[in-house]
């Protein structure tokens, strides 16, 4: 350091620094002026250019909603389709004053308070759930006149758009309301329940399956959303598509249901309340599924009005209630063929075993008389065939007593009683097929022999759905092959597997006996359903039943006549046809139908319609 040592000159150093600081300050000033000039150029000189650029150059991604899959019956008749419909929507970002725009619109087209309130609800959804410039629907189903009126006033309606959308339509109206179900607008709860993967699937889609097949097969019917990147001008009009990723339409469903048969069943029920289920014996496919009264599912698609919904929901006839899978009815005598088979298999009875029927049955050491439906009884020697054909209650009291609850429960469970059939629509009920355990758990009481007697004639605790009865009958008709009842035959091009899911085993002889007995019910001289055998070109088997009505509200006294009507017995019939090589099994329940023949006649009409319209008529084979 020594040779190069220069002395530190503090005064000089301070002067140097001061000079440099002045230069630096000058530099700062120059650069500052440069910045300000730049900002001035951008914000004042070129302001207009950038305003238009910010308004116009809005590249955005638009979802392309997929077309929902169609639903066809077995003959290719359309049950659910998509129709173009015009929706009035508002783009929030482009509207200067939302209130005055809505007010102006309500002067042009009718907008109800329902419409506006749900519109504002949708508007308030958090920002993250809505993409910018997404049109928010205000009114659905515009007609030509509405569209014209809006078009004429377009210059006053900034941010208002009329969008053409595909909206679900059910051409069969109320015919399939209970099984096809319906779609409706996605509500707040459904939106919340979406997983992050599901959420983008519904971009651009406003509806979701709410009921029936539409709900069960939602993910299949929905399809996959597509996207397009578009350049729009300040009014939201698409100028050009930059990139496009097409949506994948949902798959079509082909059902077992037969629209003809469904119509027949509805016509046969007439004004009565009730349920009809018809099952294809070979596959378990449901051919008809009627719950009457019904409703028009089209009402729900774009949102049902309060008034309409109230009327449906509060009707005494419960039109929204799907009787076929939710209605719990005592099966009455319709259980008898199945129980007789159980008796035979348990060796409690055989074809020759007979009882004496004085019109009542008494348990040993008990006073109580269990009555037969026929006050004087069916005679001294009632054997199996007669007991089924004439529906002898005393025979079944005896059988039930000797068979006992456990064996009875076990055998009936093999036919699917007391559990959901697993049909492919939601909210099915399981009914009740009681056991000792069931009574202990639910009634906190032990099982009494009297309970078995009531169960033997399908009363007491037993509750079944019409679908369960139809499925049981189909199992009987196919001699033990139990199929899963289902509505959907084909998803897109994939045929659903219809192999039997279980087998009820019984000897060939016993099957013959039971099927003969069921034939006797219809074709025998004293069969309880002999009235329906007239002029039939095929032979059928069946069983009638009546069930006492329980649980009608006693305080509903405003219309005594109607009340009396509602306390009449339910009429039931289960049956299948033809007797050889059975094709169709049905269960019919007519609420307050009184006489079981009311139900049996409906079944006959179904057999006629179905068998005579088969590609190769079974009737001719016989």
């Amino acid at each position: 350091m020594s040779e190069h040592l220069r002395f530190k000159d503090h005064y000089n150093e301070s002067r140097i620094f001061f000079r440099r600081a002045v230069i630096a300050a000058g530099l700062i000033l120059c650069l500052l002026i440069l910045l300000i000039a730049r900002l001035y150029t951008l914000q004042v000189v070129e302001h207009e250019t950038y305003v238009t650029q910010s308004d116009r150059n809005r590249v955005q991604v638009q979802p392309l909603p997929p077309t929902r899959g169609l639903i066809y019956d077995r003959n290719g008749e359309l049950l659910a389709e998509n129709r173009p419909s015009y929706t009035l929507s508002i783009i929030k970002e482009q509207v200067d004053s939302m209130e005055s725009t809505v007010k102006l619109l309500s002067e042009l087209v009718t907008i109800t308070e329902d419409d506006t309130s749900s519109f504002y609800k949708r508007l308030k959804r958090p920002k993250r759930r809505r993409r910018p410039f997404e049109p928010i629907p205000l009114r659905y189903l515009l007609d030509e006149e509405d569209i014209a009126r809006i078009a004429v006033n377009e210059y006053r309606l900034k941010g208002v758009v009329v969008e053409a959308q595909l909206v679900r339509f059910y051409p069969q109206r109320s015919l399939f309301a209970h099984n096809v179900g319906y779609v409706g607008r996605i509500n707040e709860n459904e939106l919340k329940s979406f997983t992050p993967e599901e959420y983008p699937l519904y971009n651009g889609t406003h509806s979701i399956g709410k009921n029936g097949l539409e709900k069960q097969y939602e993910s299949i019917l929905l399809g996959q959303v597509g996207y397009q990147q578009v350049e729009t001008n300040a009014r939201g009009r698409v100028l050009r598509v930059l990139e496009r990723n097409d949506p994948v339409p949902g798959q079509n469903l082909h059902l077992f249901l037969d629209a003809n048969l469904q119509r027949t069943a509805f016509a046969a029920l007439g004004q009565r309340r009730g349920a009809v289920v018809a099952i294809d014996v070979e596959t378990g496919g449901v051919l008809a599924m009627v719950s009457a009264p019904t409703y028009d599912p089209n009402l729900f698609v774009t949102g049902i009005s309060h008034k309409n919904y109230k009327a449906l929901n509060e009707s005494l006839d419960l039109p929204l209630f799907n009787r076929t899978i939710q209605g719990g009815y005592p099966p009455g005598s319709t259980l008898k063929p199945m129980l007789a088979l159980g008796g035979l298999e348990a060796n409690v009875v055989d074809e020759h075993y007979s009882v004496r029927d004085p019109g009542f049955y008494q348990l040993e050491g008990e006073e109580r008389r269990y009555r037969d439906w026929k006050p004087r009884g069916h005679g001294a020697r009632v054997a199996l065939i007669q007991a089924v054909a004439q529906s002898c209650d005393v025979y079944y009291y005896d059988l039930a007593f000797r068979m006992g609850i456990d064996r009875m429960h076990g055998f009936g469970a093999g036919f699917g009683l007391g559990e959901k059939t697993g049909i492919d629509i939601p909210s099915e009920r399981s009914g009740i097929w009681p056991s000792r355990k069931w009574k202990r758990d639910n009634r906190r009481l032990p099982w009494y022999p009297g309970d078995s007697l009531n169960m033997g004639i399908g009363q007491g605790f037993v509750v079944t759905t019409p679908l369960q009865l139809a499925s049981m009958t189909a199992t009987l008709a196919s001699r033990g092959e139990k199929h899963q009842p289902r509505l959907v035959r084909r998803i897109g091009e994939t045929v659903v597997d219809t192999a039997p899911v279980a087998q009820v085993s019984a000897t060939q002889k016993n099957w013959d006996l039971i099927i003969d007995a069921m034939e006797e019910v219809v074709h025998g001289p004293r069969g309880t359903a002999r009235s329906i055998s007239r002029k039939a070109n095929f032979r059928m088997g069946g069983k009638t039943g009546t069930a006492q009505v329980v649980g009608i509200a006693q305080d509903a006294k405003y219309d005594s006549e109607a009340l009396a009507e509602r306390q009449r017995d339910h009429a039931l019939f289960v049956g299948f046809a033809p007797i050889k090589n059975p094709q169709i099994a049905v269960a019919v329940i007519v609420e307050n139908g009184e006489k079981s023949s009311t139900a049996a006649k409906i079944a006959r009409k179904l057999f006629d319609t179905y068998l005579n319209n088969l590609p190769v008529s079974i009737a001719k084979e016989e």
Partner: protein
Amino acid sequence: MVQQDFQRRMPEASRDLRKPMGFWQRIHVDTPLLFSLLVLTAFGLIVLYSASGADKHYVQRQSVFICLGYVVMFTIAQFKMSFLQRWAPWFYVAGLGLLVLVLVMGTGAKGAQRWLSVGGFRFQPSEALKLAVPIMVASYLGVRALPPSFKHVLVTLCIITVPMVLILKQPDLGTSLLIAASGLIGLFFAGLRWRYIFGAGLLGVLGSWPMWQFVLRDYQKQRILTMFNPEADKLGAGWNIIQSKTAIGSGGLNGKGWMNGTQSQLNFLPESHTDFIIAVLAEEFGLFGALMLLLIYMVVIGRGMLIAIRAQTSFNRILAGSITFTFFVYVFVNIGMVSGLLPVVGVPLPLVSHGGTAIVTLLAGFGLLMAISTENRKVSI
């Protein structure tokens, strides 16, 4: 001994002597500087709230870092400058050590390795160098006779180059250039002779071609090309600049109003809460808002320069000068980049952009300025 003998009395010293030491000076706070910083950070939070899409989380996080920054600032303001000068080499070496650590075991995103995580806390060591380099340069030159001789200039350049290369390796071109700038600014304030400055300028012009060919990476070249012609790649690299220019330009004189900027609120503007936050401000508060911000920056910078001029030792002067001028460089580079004057390099708008480490470092720097401004005047006769 040498210093003592040749120390002279400065002209202003007698004035300072006469003034009694006030409360603020005793706790080492420079009130004009503090006040303008408070205004600046408050304004920054308001803009950040809008830029983050009304997300309270960002504002809360930022506030926490600002408070931490002020605490660090007050702490550093208590330091004795002589202590700092003695320890400067060790700070510098520690900073270099951290940079080496980053290269060995750092974490990062988008292909760059810039972060060091210690027990769940992540920070950017290159931020620490933004202070360590000017301190080191000032401390080295402060004890040498000024203007610096050729040998001292060379040593200073080495001091600058080592961290610069380490940061370039991360790679982080923006930060390494800023750190180099802070060191060179120190050299400038030390009185670097003009012939060196012009010589270097000439070399720079001649050397730009090999730089372009061999040193710059593709994405860095892309940025420079994009600056000259953003329209060439509208949806790619040019997107940021087009959108930020659109945001600034559409703001006009008065702006679209707080929280009403369509470019920023509809997510057209990328990085709206970090590097491009000035575009949000210009869009929502207009030219007046932007000028207001520049005015606050100028008050801070003006005060910094004043502190530097009044400082007593060369170390203090050089340090204060380079901190203040570097601060201005940040402001200029950021605004220049967002408004399309300069290529896009990752430089946040100081004390306004979202980002914890940067704010703490900047306020620590202002702590040094306060320490310098409130230091007891030693007068030797």
